[in-house]
């Protein structure tokens, strides 16, 4: 096909583009461009007034240079001049330039707005469309101020041509999105809604985009559109493929319009009027039926268009969440897609099922597909599809399948893409806590998480496991034992050391009876990791050591030896040095009673909203996660943190509002001040003893 411009030629432009393409290096390209820029500058400044064609050519060249990635700081005036030309192509290029190179110079803006105003009132539909397009492309506040009141008038005027109406509708939509306060629908509302009945399908398509956006912000004002939308949809769905002529796309009647109608209906609850509702349900059933019929064409465009409508209909069914029959049918249809040949359909089915999983009517139906989804997680070659499968497993998880799902997610985590690991870790942690009946399973799961994906286990996750172990007596011994074993691994993650250090510090006594995990063995195990750890972890370990001195007096000498050495008490890090010095002092002067009080076992933590959940929400953005969580309160009937039916020995009681994070990252002196707050009586004793010995 011609490598030269079609239509009006502009040979100079084609030659220029050729030159650029033939440049062998970036430097050559820049040189050529600069040469051209100099040429254009001189032409623009020159005495001879340029004719329209030349101006158009040069402005186009400037545009090309800009789109190549170079900055352009002139040409706007000439482009604006082109706007007032009578020639269509010159206007067109002028508008294109100013839409792409938006300039905030107020003088230019005034001129541009003037030109647009002229074109809008010109009664020439092509010029009007150009002007409307420009407004829609730029959509600046100044334009909104100048034109927002005029465009609705153009939209509903009886003598406006169809093409102009379409442009006006979408232009108004654009202005509304950026400057909603300037677009006052008031008197135009009913006329705009009435556009849904327009004869011209293109006008309806454009109007519907506008109405959908307006309905979202003002549902009451626009609610008359619901019945109009339903009747329009039902006419399309029941039409033969020849009825809609050119609006049929590969044998599918008006797919874009159908989808937009379905989307508009998702802005409202199910229609109250029985007749309207009946018609709508019939429509949805027809769409679901059609999916089962053999395809009218082998082309992928046909199936894409047909399935687009199907997925949108399913979204509407899910949104209504009130027709069990439709919901189950939708679920079955998606189930079929889960095993479809086409990757796109498997992807979309997994995504759609996620939303379906949160509906109480279809939750059970979704669960029946668990094996297929697990299989997808394991065998899909496309990482995006695997990710959707993981999302779906998370959404369909409940008490009956939690163990299975968590196990699958853990094994997926071992080979998962790095970019999704943190999210997966958060999800596994949430599921493990929510559905744990047996807390030793929970502890195992979190420790596995640390083992498999330690780098991606954020603070919230391991804080949480410690909070839970502190709050639940029944799992403390198990936790101590498991953590002890995990630490024996030759290369264990620093997070494991943190968790292990804390738990052994609190509950090491529960396993000290066994010679294999005697106090000295525990200490040596922790200390063997000491030099490999970062400063915060070492600080934690020092706290664990002083706790050991309290728990196991026989270790006092060994630990004091460690605290006393130069690398601790003269450590360049202030926090470590302070802890070493203070703990050493504490261990030498405090009596066993005082020590025991200061280093008493940590009291239970208050129940609050899981910070893990908060972090996941923040990561995924609103709406991505909340569905399941919101519904859980409905279904499980309890707090996120606890869950109602946890078993007879539920943990509770909170007198102390302790923030777990404060425990690690506040300096030792603040921690001491904090202990003061709890144990007022011993405070004076500790500090007076400390100050006496200097």
């Amino acid at each position, binding site marked *: *096909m*011609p490598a030269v411009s079609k239509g009006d030629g502009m040979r100079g432009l084609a030659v220029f583009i050729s030159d650029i393409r033939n440049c062998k290096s970036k430097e050559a390209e820049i040189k050529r461009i600069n040469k051209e820029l100099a040429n254009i500058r001189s032409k623009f400044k020159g005495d001879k007034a340029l004719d329209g064609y030349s101006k158009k050519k040069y402005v186009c060249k400037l*545009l090309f240079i800009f789109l190549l990635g170079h900055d352009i700081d002139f040409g706007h005036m000439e482009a604006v001049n082109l706007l007032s030309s009578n020639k269509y*192509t010159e206007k067109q290029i002028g508008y294109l330039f100013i839409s792409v190179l938006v300039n905030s110079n107020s003088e230019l803006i005034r001129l541009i707005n003037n030109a647009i105003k002229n074109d809008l009132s010109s009664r020439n539909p092509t010029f009007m469309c150009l002007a409307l397009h420009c407004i829609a492309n730029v959509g600046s506040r100044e334009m909104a101020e100048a034109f927002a009141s005029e465009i609705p008038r153009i939209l509903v005027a009886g003598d406006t041509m169809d*093409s102009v109406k379409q442009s006006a509708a979408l232009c108004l939509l654009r202005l509304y999105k950026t400057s909603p306060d300037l677009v006052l629908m008031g008197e135009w509302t009913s006329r705009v809604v009435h556009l849904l009945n327009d004869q011209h399908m293109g006008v309806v*398509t*454009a109007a519907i985009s506008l109405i959908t956006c307006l309905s979202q912000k003002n549902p009451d004002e626009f609610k008359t559109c619901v019945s109009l939308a339903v009747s329009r949809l039902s006419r399309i769905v029941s039409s033969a493929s020849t009825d809609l002529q050119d609006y049929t*796309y590969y044998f599918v009647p008006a797919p874009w319009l159908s989808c937009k109608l379905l989307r508009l209906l998702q802005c409202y609850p199910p229609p109250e009027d029985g007749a309207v509702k009946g018609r709508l349900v019939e429509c949805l059933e027809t769409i679901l039926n059609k999916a089962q019929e053999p395809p009218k064409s082998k082309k992928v465009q046909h199936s894409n*268009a047909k399935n687009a409508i199907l997925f949108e209909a399913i979204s509407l069914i899910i949104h209504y969440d009130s027709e069990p029959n439709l919901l189950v049918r939708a679920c079955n249809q998606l189930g079929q897609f889960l095993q479809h040949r086409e990757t796109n359909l498997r992807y*979309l089915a997994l995504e759609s099922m996620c939303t379906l999983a949160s509906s109480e009517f279809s939750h059970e139906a979704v669960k029946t597909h668990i094996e297929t989804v697990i299989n997808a997680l394991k065998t899909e070659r496309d990482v995006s599809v695997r990710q959707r499968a993981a999302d779906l497993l998370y959404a369909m998880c409940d008490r009956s399948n939690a163990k299975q799902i968590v196990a699958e997610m853990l094994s997926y985590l071992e080979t998962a893409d790095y970019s999704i690991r943190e999210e997966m870790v958060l999800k596994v942690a949430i599921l493990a806590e929510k559905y744990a009946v047996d807390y030793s399973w929970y502890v195992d799961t979190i420790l596995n998480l640390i083992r498999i994906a330690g780098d991606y286990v954020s603070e919230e996750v391991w804080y949480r496991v410690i909070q839970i172990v502190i709050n639940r007596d029944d799992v403390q011994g198990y936790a101590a034992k498991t953590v002890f074993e995990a630490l024996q691994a030759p290369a264990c993650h620093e997070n494991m050391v943190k968790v292990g250090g804390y738990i052994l510090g609190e509950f090491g006594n529960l396993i000290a009876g066994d010679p294999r995990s005697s106090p000295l063995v525990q200490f040596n195990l922790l200390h063997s990791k000491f030099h490999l750890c970062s400063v915060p972890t070492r600080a934690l370990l020092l706290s664990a050591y002083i706790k050991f001195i309290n728990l196991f007096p026989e270790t006092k000498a060994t630990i004091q030896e460690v605290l006393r050495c130069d690398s601790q008490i003269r450590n360049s890090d202030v926090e470590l040095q302070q802890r070493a010095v203070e703990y050493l002092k504490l261990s030498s002067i405090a009596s066993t009673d005082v020590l025991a009080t200061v280093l008493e076992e940590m009291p239970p933590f208050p129940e609050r909203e899981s910070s893990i959940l908060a972090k996941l929400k923040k990561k995924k953005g609103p709406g991505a996660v909340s569905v399941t969580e919101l519904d859980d309160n409905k279904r499980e009937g309890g707090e996120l943190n606890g869950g109602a039916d946890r078993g007879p020995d539920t943990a509770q009681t909170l007198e102390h509002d302790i923030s777990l994070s404060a425990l690690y990252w506040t300096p030792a002196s603040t921690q001491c001040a904090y202990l003061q707050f709890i144990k007022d009586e011993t405070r004076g004793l500790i500090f007076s003893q400390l100050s006496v010995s200097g």
Partner: protein
Amino acid sequence: MMRFLLLFSRQGKLRLQKWFMPMSEREKKKIIRDMTTMVLARQPRTCNFLHWKDLKIIYKRYASLYFCLAVESQENELLALEIIHRYVELLDKYFGNVCELDIIFNFEKAYFILDEFLMGGEIQETSKQIVNRSIEASDMLQEGDNSEWYEVELFG
């Protein structure tokens, strides 16, 4: 609504960029880099959809060009694929067996054709005939440009 449409070659050279929301030049350059890296890294026979930030990215390769469309998260992915296909059909009808060179040398036409059926991030006209007719009519206007301004009945 659609947020942006990018066309780039297999070597990552950008051939067309249409932005439906205002953005700084720096942001645009970053997005172009991100998109080209992400899409060019995709294996064959994977699905045509990606998640990026809070947007959905729909991409498809036609000969030597990648068409990459970003839509908001509530949009229908399959229809977005068909929007890309419709654009390719229109280009094909206009240039006759369109290829990358046509878009390079007639870039302004590619933008004009895009503007005929998309506007403000939404699809404006879904009838292929109507769009084709208006494109042809613009061309007619171009050729007749040397005479005085006259009104042309283009639609209906």
